Structure formats: C-alpha cells, structure tokens
C-alpha cells in the first residue's frame, strides 16, 4: 500500500478531556518534523464543557485551508464519534476509545467497510497509568504510533510542556503517552495508508491567526496596545500583554472598547504605533472614535476578529459580516481604511501594511480577520521573524524651515499634511474633531469645509494606488471567476486549483485592501471572466453589494454562508461547479 502523506486528522471528545492539548502537541510535533499543517479547534460557547474537536491537516507544502472530510478521526468516546463521524471521509479511519472485543462496526453499519482501531484509552489511563485524566495522552501515543509521528520528538515535547507542572504530572503524562504508543505499536495491525514522514529543515513555528496578528503588530513596531477582552479576539491582547513590556512598550486593559479606542488615539497622537483588537460588538462601540481619528488624522490600527453577529450572536463561531460596518464606521464621511487578512501568514504580514498606511496617511486602519482565522493554526518559516528587526523609527519632525508657519493640516496634493508629535520643539498644535482650517483652528465656513473634506478624502486615492494588493489564482484566461475576501481566501485558492485540475477554467481574486477599493486591480479581473461568483460568510452579501456599488453593471452570482461555520474549499468548489454547469 502506497503511503498517503497528506491527510486530515480529527481529534474529538468532551472539552474536559484534553482534546485541545493533544491537538496542539501533535501540531507542534508535525512542525518539528518539517511537516506543514493547518489546524483548528472549535470549543463550546459556554464556559463549562461540551463537545470539543481539533482538526489537523498535514501536508508536504504549505496549505491554505483545513481541507474537507477527516481521513482519520480520533474519538475519545462513542459520543464523539456520533457527533463527528458524519464528517469522516469514505475511506477514513476511526481510532476510538473502546474494547476491540466489542467492535463499533456492529453498532454502526457505516463503519463496516472502514478501518477502525479500538484503543482502550480510558482503561489504559485508569488502570495502567493510574490517572484517568491522561486519557488524551494515551490517545496521543496511539495516534503517533499509528500514523508515523516521531516518538522521540513527542517525548521531548511532552517533557517541555509538563516540566512546569510538577514531577507527578510530567511522569503520568509521559507514561500515558508511552502506554498508548506501545499498545498501538504492539496490538494494532495497521491497515490504512495514512502516514507522515519527517522532512529536512530546521522546523517551523506555528501560530494561530490571533497570535500572528499580535506578533505582526509587534514586528511592525507597535508599542502600545489598549483593549478589552472579547471572544474571539482576546488572544491578541494576551500575547501583547506578555510581549510589549519586554520591548519597552505598554498594554492597558481598558474599562471598555470606547476607552480602548480613545487610548489608541492618544497613543497614536503621542507618536507611538498603537492598536486595539476587538470583535463585532466592540467595533460597533468604536465607531464614533474611529471618525475622530479620521477627522483629527491620527494613525491607529484596529484589528477586528469577526464572530457571528449581530449583537452577541454566535460569540464562539465565525462569520464575515462586519465588513459593511467596518467601511461605514462613524457618522459622516470619515475616510479610513479596511484591510482583510487572508491567511495566517497574512495575519502577520498585513499588520506591517496596516501600520505603514496608518502612519504614512495619518488615518485609522481597520484590519478584519475572523474566528476561523484567529483560531486556525498554521506553520510559518522561522525566517519570517528572523529577517525583521521589529523596530519602528519614531516619527521624525516635519522638515519645516519656518516653524512659525507650520500648518498641521496643510492642504497638499496627496492630502497628507506635515505632522509633528508631542515632544518635538516648536511644532505644538491642537487637533480637533471639529472642522478646522489648515492651522487646526475650528472653522465652519463653506470654503474651508469643502477643501478640508476633499483633502482628507484624497488620501484614499494614494492608499488604493500604493497599497492596493489583490491575490489572484488560477487560469489566466478564466471562464469563471470567484471573488472573496479574508479567511475565504485560502479556500478559494485551493478550490480554484481543484477546479482547474478538473478542467474548469477558473480563477480566484482575493483583495486584501477592501477599502479604499483598488478598483484598478479588480476591474481587469471582472472584465476577464465570463461569470463571476462572490462567496462570503454572511447573509446579505456585504462585499458583493460593495463591489456592485463600485462597478456599475457588475452583477455576480452570490453564494452566502451564515451558519457560523467557516467557508470551506468544498463550498467554493461547489459554487464554481454550479456556475460551470
């Protein structure tokens, strides 16, 4: 049997059973073996318990989505199989807690022609290890043995992981791992083709999207963060809470999101790269102050990790439905910027762009990600960090000969005015959310008003021109185009490839800068496709509506998913096939 090196593992159980930990360890083990991966955990909405599952896709190249069905499902108990079994592929393998004497296939006819390995996880943990809580390590051991994970690497990993948790904890978990490993190794006859293989390299590091946003900000020179906890964005704050003080920066947990946003404006005004992170409800609350940032022209970055809305909605599930608000944010015509990260790596890299735009154009920048990105983990090359210093130069004072004639809001061709920051001598000025003249003094006359509105708006032209990046995949002369944004980018990339492989002339377009819209890059794509699908994770087709407002005559087919689950490459592929019919 030819080994299959790329496959998807699901690890499932009750949330108290250590599913997540087992998944994390396996992910890191893969990274150390130079195996690329993409992994995701769902967790229950209430604080206490409920079913939990980790999906781990393993590949020889970097991947952009979570794949489709499970090839291997590890079930910590029968209920977990009942819940996740339907997602097990036609040729999938089940590893389940249980007695080989009482095979599952007798109770579940759909298992009759599938490989099932029964591992008495619970019994081993209880009897052999003497600690029922180590069931997950038994499962981890068995999984490692069955699918080719390096025992050595895993043992080292476990040792590192548990070293701070005390002697007994460490011993029990290692014992459990080994017991599981040995059981599978000795008692189970492998009948499936799924097997990983270590590759050459110095290994990867693995980040979830939220961690990537946080480290991206850190390496983009962000030195001030203010935020308020909210699922699924809190990790960004938590990572920066640990890291910022190490580099002379500061993080403040604010009393609410309005305060966070106010603090970020203060930090930006003070000349320090500043950001906040939140999710839908927080973004709603920040709308007013985003407008102040636009009017007073203060650099700042807001990461919004979308979750199911509206209101409290589906706080632990994903959606792409904050786009309209992100673009509209604030009453009045308040120019600002909306970027959307498409992959985990992009979560890191887009922060550099966000801070650069914010600084250069003195404007608030919203970065959209979502729960599906924020909680998905992927491997990243270590060079990503090593090639950066992560320092941002403090803003230099504007080069002005006659300081008495310094105009903070000078009318310029690109709308960008000279800007000093507190501490720079002789360049003091007052910013205000009132309409103002070039000096910054409140002014309400119609002419000043018109000129200032136009000045601020002009910045968007430069931004669309200089930062208008779109990702394009697939056939250079497509019949069918798919447009999406944010976390849908990865699935689109893979689905377009699959469609092309199946003979459909398909292409994908995924803009990273959503507003101002880089129409000069989108238009050629639209014009080059016979039919276009816009697929997004919301009910009303927010980006499709936006694109229609930009391109008169543009009337794409819309595919909208709004059930709390991420858009998958299968969804995209189906949409392409549908249109291709």
């Amino acid at each position: 049997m030819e080994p299959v090196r790329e496959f998807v593992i699901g690890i499932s159980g009750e949330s108290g059973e250590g599913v997540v930990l087992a998944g994390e360890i396996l992910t890191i083990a893969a990274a150390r073996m130079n195996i690329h991966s993409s992994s995701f955990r769902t967790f229950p909405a209430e604080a206490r318990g409920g079913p939990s599952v980790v999906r781990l896709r393993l590949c020889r190249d970097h991947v952009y989505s979570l794949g489709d069905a499970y090839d291997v499902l590890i079930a910590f108990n029968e209920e977990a199989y009942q819940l996740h079994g339907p997602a097990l592929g036609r040729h999938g393998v089940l590893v389940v807690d249980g007695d080989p004497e009482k095979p599952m296939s007798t109770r579940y006819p759909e298992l009759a022609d599938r490989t099932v390995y029964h591992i008495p996880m619970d019994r081993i943990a209880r009897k052999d290890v003497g600690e029922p809580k180590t069931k997950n390590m038994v499962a981890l051991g068995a999984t490692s043995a069955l699918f080719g994970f390096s025992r050595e690497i895993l043992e080292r990993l476990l040792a590192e992981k548990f070293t701070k948790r005390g002697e007994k904890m460490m011993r029990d978990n290692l014992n459990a791992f080994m017991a599981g490993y040995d059981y599978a190794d000795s008692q189970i006859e492998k009948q499936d083709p799924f097997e990983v293989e270590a590759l050459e390299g110095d290994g990867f590091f693995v980040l979830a999207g939220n961690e990537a946003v946080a480290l991206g900000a850190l390496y983009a020179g962000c030195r001030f963060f203010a935020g308020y906890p909210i699922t699924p964005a809190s990790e960004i704050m938590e990572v920066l809470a640990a890291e910022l003080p190490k580099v002379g920066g500061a993080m403040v947990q604010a009393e609410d999101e309005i305060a966070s946003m106010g603090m970020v404006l203060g930090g930006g005004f003070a000349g320090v790269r500043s950001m906040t992170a939140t999710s839908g409800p927080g973004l709603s609350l920040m709308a007013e102050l985003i407008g102040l940032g636009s009017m007073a022209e203060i650099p700042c970055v807001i990461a919004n990790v979308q979750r199911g809305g509206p209101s409290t909605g589906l706080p632990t599930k994903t959606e792409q439905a904050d786009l309209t608000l992100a673009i509209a944010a604030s009453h009045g015509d308040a120019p600002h910027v909306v970027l959307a990260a498409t992959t985990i790596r992009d979560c890191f890299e887009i922060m550099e762009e966000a801070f650069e735009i914010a600084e250069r154009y003195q404007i608030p920048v919203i970065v959209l990600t979502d729960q599906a990105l924020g909680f998905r983990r992927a491997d990243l090359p270590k060079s990503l960090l090593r090639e950066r210093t992560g320092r941002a130069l403090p803003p230099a004072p504007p080069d002005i000969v006659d300081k008495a004639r310094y105009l903070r809001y000078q009318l310029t061709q690109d709308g960008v005015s000279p800007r000093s920051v507190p501490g720079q001598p002789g360049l003091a000025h007052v910013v205000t959310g009132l309409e103002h003249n070039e000096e910054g003094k409140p002014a309400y006359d119609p002419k000043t008003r018109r000129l200032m509105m136009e000045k601020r708006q002009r910045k968007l032209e430069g931004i669309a021109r200089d930062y208008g990046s779109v990702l394009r995949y697939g056939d250079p002369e497509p019949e069918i185009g798919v447009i999406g944004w944010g976390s849908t980018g990865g699935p689109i990339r893979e689905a377009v490839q699959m469609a092309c492989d199946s003979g459909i002339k398909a292409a994908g377009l995924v803009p990273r800068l959503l507003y101002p819209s880089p129409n000069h890059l989108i238009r050629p794509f639209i014009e080059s496709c016979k039919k276009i699908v816009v697929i997004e994770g919301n009910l009303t087709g927010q980006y499709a509506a936006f694109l229609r407002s930009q391109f008169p005559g543009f009337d794409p087919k819309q595919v909208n998913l709004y059930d709390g689950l991420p858009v998958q490459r299968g969804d995209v592929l189906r949409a392409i096939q549908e249109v291709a019919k």
Partner: protein
Amino acid sequence: MNPTAPAQASTAERKPSDYRSGRKPVWCPGCGDYGVLNSVFSALAEVRIDPDRLVVVSGIGCSSRMPGFIKAYGFHGAHGRAVPVAVGVKAANPSLDVLLVGGDGDAFSIGGGHLPHVARRNMDLTYVVMDNEIYGLTKGQTSPTSQPGTVTKASPYGSSEQPILPVMLLLAYGATFVARGYSSRPKELAVMVERGIRHKGFSFIHVLSPCLTFNKPVNFDYFDSKVLPLPEDHKPDDLFGAMKLASDPDKLYLGVHYEVDRPSFTERLYPGGVRPDPEPAIDTEALIRRYS
C-alpha cells in the same frame, strides 16, 4: 501628574503668558472658564512645564475648548472621552506631561465611566473639571451636578434627580489627590493646579466655574454664598474626614481635600517611570521557541 519635563529638559523660567496660544477664547463674556484658564497659565508657569512636552486633552463642551487657547500640544477630542485619550498619551509616552480639562457633563455624565478607572490606576494625569452644573455648549440642559429643581428646556418641570458629589466620588474611587477650586479665586486655584501637577499619579481638581448664559441661578453670587475654606484641622490624608466634608451639598469647601502617596501608573508600568531608551530588541529566538 508628576511632571517629567522639568527634570529632563529646560528649567528656564516661564511667564504665564508664555502659555497663551494667541487664539481668543470663544466663551461668553463673564464665563467662569476665563478665570480657570488664567489659573492654568499661572500653574504651568510656576512648574515651568515645557510647552513642547505638554499635552492638553479635552472632550467636547464650552470648557473643553480650552486646549485651543493654550500653547502646547492639544487634543480636543470627543464628548466624554478626554480621559481615555489622556491615558493613551501618557501610557504610550510617559515622558510627556498630560493635562486634562473639561466640563461637568463631559466628566461625570457621558465620561463618568472612565473616572473610577483612571483614579484607581493612579494614572499620572491632572484633571481640571470646570463645573457649571449645566451643559453649556448645547444651550442649557441639566448635568449630573445640577441642583434638584433646575428648570431647563429639557426639564421644564424642574429636575428631580439628586446631583452627584464630584469630590466624594473621586475619594471613593481612590484618587490620590482631590481638590476643589473656584474660578473667581484664581490665585488659590492656580496653586491647587500647581500642586496637582506636582502630585505623583492622578490629581483631580473640581472647579466651580459658572455659566452665566444658561445657568443663571448658579452664578458667582451663588457660589460665593456656598464656598468656604477647608477647616484648619483637616488633614489631607484623612479620607473619611474628606468624605464628610464632601458630603454636604451646601458647603463647598475649597482646597486640597485629600492627598496621599501611592505608586503611579507609569511607575508601575515602566521601571523608573520612563520608557527604556534605547528600546530593548525583540528576542526573536525566544518567540520562535515559544511557538515551536
């Protein structure tokens, strides 16, 4: 606020007029805020604050227009959000001096939720609240400090709500410096602002500053009849004494009601209260280890 600039930068002598921006205040003739502005000028000069390192932050309201009249960096922001903006300025760059100014509506109504937190953090800021017991800029509606029975267009039958007691609130929040001044006693007020600026951590100065246009009953005569000096024997670290004095709505004691020493925000945040210079480099290898 515990000013950092004099220590680091020039200690040149300064005159109050050095802090005039040259913009003419837009206040009504006779508005109490003129007196407050003058006291602020004097206090800044007394402490020799470097105007280039000073940031004056406000919200929205008549009183909140003050930053425009002061020669310094200024941030005239959004209604009720002066505190968060000031916290951001100071937390991000602790080597700046940050003065907060604004009105009673801005501070206690829409912005009231920020006060307990800036106080308990002992943020290195000085907050001067000009209390005219009314919303001046929006042409006269009751504020949280309006007296019961105040008739405005929005309270045509007289307001029936009990006013808050600003000094009491700040004491309860754990503010480390709480004072009350009066715009028609500009010298006394200047000294209070000066002491507030020199105080380490958060200092709060409640200033009686009448609006003659939209709160005619609460004018200088009214305040004159209610103000009195702090009792001679009141000790500034006597919290309950201060609370008792703050609880009588008919006696508006002037002076520094409370002052204690507690580590300030930037002291706790940054060793020595200043951002390290040069900035420590990111430990990239440690980060890679953490995530692999």
